[in-house]
Every structure is written in structure tokens, then in C-alpha cells.
């Protein structure tokens, strides 16, 4: 079966999920840096 690539839809869906996750990881890493400073 041929699969549609749907690149715009893929980018939108993944952005919805990954942007909040990236924000949480970024803030956590910032805090974690204090362990070694």
C-alpha cells in the first residue's frame, strides 16, 4: 500500500507534542546544571 507523506500535517502534529516537551526538558536541564556549578 502506498503511504501518503503528508509532511505539513506530520510537522504540525509532532510540533504540538514536542514543543511542550522541549520546553520542559530545557527548564529541567537549566536546573540540573546547578548540581555541578
Amino acid at each position: 500500500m502506498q503511504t501518503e507523506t503528508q509532511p505539513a500535517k506530520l510537522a504540525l502534529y509532532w510540533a504540538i507534542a514536542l514543543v511542550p516537551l522541549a520546553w520542559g526538558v530545557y527548564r529541567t536541564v537549566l536546573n540540573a546544571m546547578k548540581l555541578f556549578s
Partner: protein
Amino acid sequence: MSALSFLDREHSVAGLGFNRWLVPPAALCIHLCIGEVYAFSVFNLPLTKLIGITKAAQGDWSLADVGWIFSVAILFLGLASAFTGAWLDRAGPRKAMTVSAFCVGGGFLVGALGIQLHSLPLLFLGYGVLGGCGLGIGYISPVRTLMTWFPDRPGMATGLAIMGFGGGAMIASQLSVLLMHHFASATSLGVAPAFATLGIIYAVFMLVGAAIVRLPEAQWRPAGYVPAAATSRLITDQNVDVRTAVRTPQFYLLWAMLFLNVTAGIGVLSQASPMIQEMFKGSVTPLAAAGFVGLLSLFNMGGRCVWASTSDLIGRKATYFIFFLLGLLLYAAVPSIAREQKITAFVLCYGIILSMYGGGFATIPAYLKDLFGTRYVGAIHGRLLTAWSAAGVLGPVLVDYIRQYRIHEGVAKADAYSATMYLMAGLLFIGALCNLAVGPVSRHFHQPNAPAAE
């Protein structure tokens, strides 16, 4: 046709040519929200100062009272997943995710009302019972859906979803603190409005996940997919019904393995901040200890995706052997590393241990699928999650009890954790024995005349 019929299973089946990589974000939308339960501790101290504001006053709740809210939520997560697993399989992911969104969002709103009225039973009922049920209903359905889309890589698929659960804790801990700061005033700590706002945000985000989730057609297979049953005797192409599965020794061996792996990890996770401060007295500040907890969360999240994907390559049994045997060695090494005050090695040891804690959660659905088939794996996974509830209560109690006992015996605080570490190593050894005993499910448990897989 009913207005809500678009929630039905048959209305969420994808059309021809649908790209399966559109489905993991839907699963992530759910798990990124329900993972908030692991960050509940950020509310603990504010909830003990709702009346006194700057410090606890007469009539304020105690930390012990508030501490039980997390345990109640985890308990209802396990109960809901155990008792609704079969319904979730029938109802389909969209309906399950929608119900979960309303339970989680509603749980926060009822909890906010409980905080506003200073009613602890209402908070328990809202966040603990209603919210906990939402967590259980929301946990299984995305995992099961991804397994049907990725039969060629079930470990990676479940790892992706369950990674979201770990990541959700990181988002929630930051977001909750930001919202409390935003709503705080001279007369309020802002906990109730933060709760209400979180409830609305989570419900909306989860409903987005429910709207975009799709199921494959019954006989859909990825192009070029060859079932792995022919390559390993531990992987079946048959199905075992949930009521039959719970009568097999394999189910109880996997229950024990998940229970032991979670007990070992959650005990440390719950005490991570005081533990590093007491073992490295003078060199680790409370702020740095919070950084350590954050770092453990990162390893916990990363491990879910990395280990579950690895299990697709080396097999579930081998992956679990790594968890138990490497975990055993690391736990046994921690006391001497702490005595020598090697902080980097200490952090690395716990990072790897927590990566395997997360990996255990993420690999178990694929292990179940290998042994019992795809058809009832959601319901079987639901029953197995009672191991998480049991470990969620026992793990922290075990670590805390042994620490207190050792301190009462006159052992220095820095050394009080050593006995716990050796006990955890012992638990992991038992887990390795359970894993060793896991074999293929006997043919007479297989469902007769059923399609091999969905």
C-alpha cells in the same frame, strides 16, 4: 447517528494511505499530560500553608496528610487500568482518551474546589480518585494503539508513548510552579487557580490527542512486515484472552518483575533530594539536589525510549536481564561510591538506574504482546499495572522505614541508605530469577479459532 458517534471505534479507523507516524503525537498528547502525577510533590508544601500562607498555621493540612494524595492517585491509576482494560479494547482509543481527558481535567477542577473550600476529602476525591481513574484510562489506550500501528517495532512504539509520561512530569513541575507564582497574592498561594488552570490545559491538550488518534484497519500491516513469531519461541502469533492470561504463570512472573523493578526505582526517586544531600553533606545544596532530581527525570524519560527500542533488537528477556543484573551491580556499588564522595560517578549510577526504571515501564507492554499476542494486550497490560500501584506504595515506605530504623540504631545519616541499596540489589536479583523463569505461554491457553492478530 448520535452526536458523539465520532468517538466510536469504527469512526477512528484510518483510511487507505494514512501515514502511521501521525499517530505517536496523539499518544504523546495524552502521556505528556497524565505524567503530571509524578510532579505532584511541587504542590505538597504549598498545600500545607493554605491558611498560614508564609508558614503552616493551625488548621492547615500536615505534610503526611497531603503526601497520601499521590499514593491515592497511583492506586486508582492501577485500579482503573485493571478494571477498564477490557472496555478500553472494545471502546477504541478516541473514546477512551476523551473519557480520560474529562476525568483528569475534572479531577483537577474538583481538586481546586477542595483547595478553595479547604476540604481534604474533596481534594482526595477530585485529584486522587477521579484524576487517578483518568490516569489509568489514559495510560493504556495510546500504548495499545501504537502497538497495532508498529507491529514491526512494538518496543519503540510503546517507548515513545511512555516516554511522554516521563516528560510530562518535567513539564508539570515547571508549569505548576509558574502558575502558582502567577496567581499568588498576599492572601493566597495561588494553588486553587493553578489547579483549575492546569485542569483546563490538560483536558484541552488531551482532547487534541483524542481528535487526531487513528486505528489501522483490522488486517493492516506495514509494507514488507514479516511477523517475528518465526524467529523467537518467546514471540507468539496467537492471542490469549485477558481472563486466561491472568491464570498463566507468565503473567505473575511479569507482574513480579515490574513490581520489583518499580519498587527499586521509585524508592530512590521519592527520596532522591534528601538522599544526595545527606550522602554528600556540605557539598550538595538543596538547589543542587533539585537539579539532581531533574537529571534523574531526564534519565527516566530517555530510558523509556532508548531501552524499549533496544528491546526490539535484542529481545525483551535480554533487556530485562540487563535491567536486573546491571541494576544489581550499580546498587551494590553506590554505598562505596558515596563513601569516597565521587559525585559524578554517584549521579551517573543513579542516572543509569533510573533509565532502567523507565525502561522497565516502556518494555513491559511489548513483552506482554510477545507472550500473549496483540488482541487483548491492552486489557492484560491494565491488569499488570496493579504492580505499579503496589510498588508505588511499598517502594517509598521501604526506603523511608529502613532509613529511619538505621538512624535509630545509631548509624550516621550519610550511611543510613547503604542497607537500602543492598536490599534493592537483592530485589533486583529476585527479578532476574523471575525473568529467567519466563518461557512461552502453553498452547492450551491460546484462544481457539481467533484471528492471529489485529
